[in-house]
């Protein structure tokens, strides 16, 4: 289970944990199939990310593609310390390192 940005969630994905409002009332229960209209409604009330089970294999493939793109982008910049630092930072972000987790649920 992972909090995934709502714009990255395809319709048909299954909600991995129940969603409660700040006041404690149930908004959606675990196991709900997220349709386009549910996702749109959640966006409207300001939900930015949702806990869903992610397909590990697909995630790994995406990550390796992005990693390859970074290598390609920085080709030829090996001697520039600033560009090398930006490259390290981008790879870190790809691996999920970030100063802050922006996930907010209702």
């Amino acid at each position: 289970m992972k909090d995934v940005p709502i714009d990255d969630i395809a319709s048909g994905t299954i909600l991995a944990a129940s969603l409660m409002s700040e006041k404690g009332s149930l908004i959606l229960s675990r196991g709900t199939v997220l349709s386009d209209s549910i996702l749109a409604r959640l966006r409207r009330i300001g939900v930015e990310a949702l806990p869903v089970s992610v397909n590990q294999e697909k995630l790994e493939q995406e990550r390796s593609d992005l990693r390859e793109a970074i290598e390609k982008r920085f080709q030829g910049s090996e001697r520039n310390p600033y560009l090398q630092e930006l490259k390290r930072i981008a790879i870190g972000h790809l691996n999920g390192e970030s100063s802050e987790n922006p996930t907010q649920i209702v």
Partner: protein
Amino acid sequence: MMIYFNEQTNEKLEDVLNRLGRLPPLPESIQRINRMIDSEQTTLDAVGHEIAKDYALSAQVLQLINSSFYGFSDRISSIKQAVVLLGLNVIRTLTGTSWVSEMIKDSSKGLHHHSLATARTSYVLSGALSIGEPEEIASLGLLHDLGKAVLAKFLPEDFQQVRNITDHNNICFHQAELEVLGVTHAVVAGRLLQKWNLPERVVQPISHHHDEKLPDAFRKETALLRLADLMVRAEGCGYVGDLSMPDFPGEIAEELHLSLADLHMLADEAYDQMRRIPRYIGDRAL
């Protein structure tokens, strides 16, 4: 690659500008607001009132400033408040920006995404480095690639030729532009923004964001814009028409007094802003 403002470059620029044909003038409503701001007798109230009269314009300006667009907390909720908090000069930039940025939005999703990400990153850098007013510095980021949108629309064949070069070579877009057109999108955008009466502190950094060296005027702003562009490209956020990083001369870090550790901290902060841009606007991956 240095862009010399010699006669040959000027000739090529004039040629490109001529071929761009008749670009629309700044709308009358914005020109009227500019005239009011320039006149000595004007008051904050009067300008605020004039902007508020134009619903579409006031919505666009507020959207520019606030969360629905850049994604920041609702610092400013009314035009009146915006005028008071930001001052007339910044408001003048924002009315122009709101109109010009529509062209980028209509151009390509990838370019719009890159522009939004650069706007947010510029905003972050402006606050962290105390350079300019964040809302106005964000305009630099939003508009810096305007030239690409304009070339794509008005000179599609040349644009495609540039794309063919960048698709098959490890070369930056602006370098390929120099080969095909003899001028870069940066210089083209600068001239257009000048025509549309945006202030020099917006025009100059955009005009020079691909020069080899920082210009004499607006050095800090230009360095900031180049850094923002580099940070966004490093993350592969949006699409700019090429697959390689532009140079990052030490001069930029020196001008902004940045250590590698500062760079890391700022890049983390910028990245947190970039990932909040709704995905549907464009793809993160190239």
